[in-house]
């Protein structure tokens, strides 16, 4: 280097080889992941990345070479993305989510969960009472697609034939109806969660409305003297499915409560903080809905016996409950510390 070269040129010439080596390592990382790097490359990636960041910082001060600045900028950005990539394996991630994440989030959301179940319970009670008062309420609340042909004019035998349907020719039809019901409930759950942001009210309304439908539907069957049979028919999937809706509603409530009572945070930040648990509730609801779909699609058609239906439905319910209550217990305090 002669005396005549300017400072920023010398700066660049001294470091160019390192940058190019970093570029090569980063390119390999982008192609096939950090795991594909050898020991030397992995060690140098961290060192060279910090050096390049340093170079960028210095170059911004001393150099007016636009092409150099652009290059360093892009190189550092790419190296940053390679270095600060999520390092956890998918297996570890799922394990953490299912063993600690979801159960702990559920336990932290006891009050919103209670409110969610209360909303549906109140809705169901109201629907039931209204039906007893005047049974034309049935037509008001029951959406046509959900009724599956069961209305006020259906006789006891009609209703029973839907509940215990071992005739396989009707299986497809019933399958379609079950899927319809399922998609209805998925939609309700999704909205109950997402609309919770608007200070909880839409979630509450949706959950209670779902309760109303349930109430009048049960009341119709009780009216025809087959209350226990419909209880079994609903139990096998409903324990899981209706709980899922309540849990999604509880997730919505957490968002709504963050907006209503942000405490010392800005509403935006409060929403972000509550969002962490709310999303876990949403994942829980999605898993339960999926399980309910399986139970509904297969279980309800294959199992025609009332007692077995009750056992499966509430047994699965007990499994969910024990997961939520007992999983990841010891880690609670550790999580609270963090």
């Amino acid at each position: 280097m002669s005396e005549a070269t300017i400072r920023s040129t010398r700066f660049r010439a001294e470091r160019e080889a390192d940058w190019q080596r970093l570029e090569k390592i980063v390119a390999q990382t982008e192609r096939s992941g950090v795991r594909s790097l050898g020991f030397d490359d992995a060690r140098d990636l961290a060192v060279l990345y910090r050096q390049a960041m340093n170079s960028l910082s210095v170059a911004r001060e001393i150099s007016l070479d636009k092409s150099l600045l652009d290059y360093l900028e892009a190189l550092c950005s790419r190296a940053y993305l390679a270095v600060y990539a999520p390092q956890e394996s998918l297996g570890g991630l799922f394990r953490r989510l299912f063993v600690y994440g979801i159960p702990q989030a559920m336990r932290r959301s006891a009050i919103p969960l209670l409110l969610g179940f209360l909303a549906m319970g109140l809705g169901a009670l109201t629907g039931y009472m209204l039906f007893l008062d005047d049974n034309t309420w049935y037509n008001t609340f029951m959406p046509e697609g959900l009724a599956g042909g069961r209305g006020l004019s259906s006789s006891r035998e009609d209703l029973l034939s839907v509940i215990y349907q071992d005739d396989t020719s009707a299986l497809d039809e019933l399958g379609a109806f079950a899927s319809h019901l399922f998609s209805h409930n998925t939609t309700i759950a999704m909205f109950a969660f997402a609309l919770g942001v608007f200070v909880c009210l839409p979630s509450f309304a949706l959950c209670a409305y779902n309760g109303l439908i349930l109430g009048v539907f049960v009341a119709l069957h009780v009216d025809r003297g087959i209350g226990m049979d419909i209880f079994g028919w609903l139990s096998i999937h409903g324990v899981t499915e209706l709980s899922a809706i309540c849990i999604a509603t509880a997730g919505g409530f957490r968002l709504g409560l963050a907006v209503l009572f942000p405490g010392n945070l800005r509403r935006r930040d409060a929403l972000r903080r509550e969002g962490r648990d709310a999303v876990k509730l949403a994942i829980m609801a999605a898993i339960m809905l999926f399980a309910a779909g399986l139970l509904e699609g297969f279980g309800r058609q294959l199992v025609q016996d009332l007692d077995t239906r009750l056992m499966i439905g509430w047994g699965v319910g007990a499994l969910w409950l024990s997961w939520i209550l007992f999983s990841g217990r010891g880690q609670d305090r550790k999580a609270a510390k963090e």
Partner: protein
Amino acid sequence: MSTPAIVKRARKQRSTRDGRMIRDFRPPEGVPLNFEVAGLGIRLAAQITDLLITSMFVLVLVLFLAATDLADGSALWIIASLSFFFIRAPYYVLAELIWNGQTLGKRICRLRVVSADGRSLRPYSVTVRNLMKEIEVFYPGTMMISAAALGPGEYIILLIWIGVLLAVPLTNKKRQRLGDMIANTYVIYQPQAILMPDLTTRPAAEAREKFAFLPHQLDHYGAYELQTLEKVLHVDTSGHSQDIARRHRRNLKAISEKIRSKIDYTDKVDDKDIPEFLEAFYLAQRRYLESRKLFGDAREDKFHKHDEKSAAL
């Protein structure tokens, strides 16, 4: 006295040109990085690619069900739409986790999701932004497809909904949709690193001797003009047609004349020496400006004298 209007206008024009950059991104090392914000058009293209990929899965599943007579008719239709959801949502989340913020569509379009706080992308953010996508993009999308079956009231609600969801990313500079805001993420272009040769090593020793510049001649321009000249000098016409090479030579000639008249450079420059002259000028100008900058006198552009004046007053 404040900066004259003409200076303000020129500078504003330049700053709007790079308005699509994220300037406040700070990694843990504390050196801010600038990323280019991805526009909605290219994001839509990536989205459509992903949609095609996920619908392939669903198609295979549905064909399998139809072929094995497990379901038919409306049941099949509903199973298709549901499995679409149960395949799509995990696909986006897992893909963005495994490939650090890229789905296959984003990979093809060279886009990436980054965490706005400068840390690594967290599973939580990825989940949130993709769950919100269901509500923001896919639900209204499927409603649109079945728009014919909607009543007028529902139709209006749907339109308002879509309007609001489109307005959110269009009204903020970083093009964040609602999911991005809640998850605190940006969608950016994957940066490309190309290192051009250093122009200051180009002029030979005799060229430096031949074209000498005095300090007052280097007082006119600022960093912006220097870097514009750099861009022009980086143009390499060797792989192009005669016509382009001729036009480039004409540009260089015009630029050198402009510079010579502005800095009062009276010596004659032959046509064949023009590139050499410009490179020598670039070297001298850069050396001068960089040393001025080291002494605390950073000159943004040729209007720097206005800044000095307004600072003095």
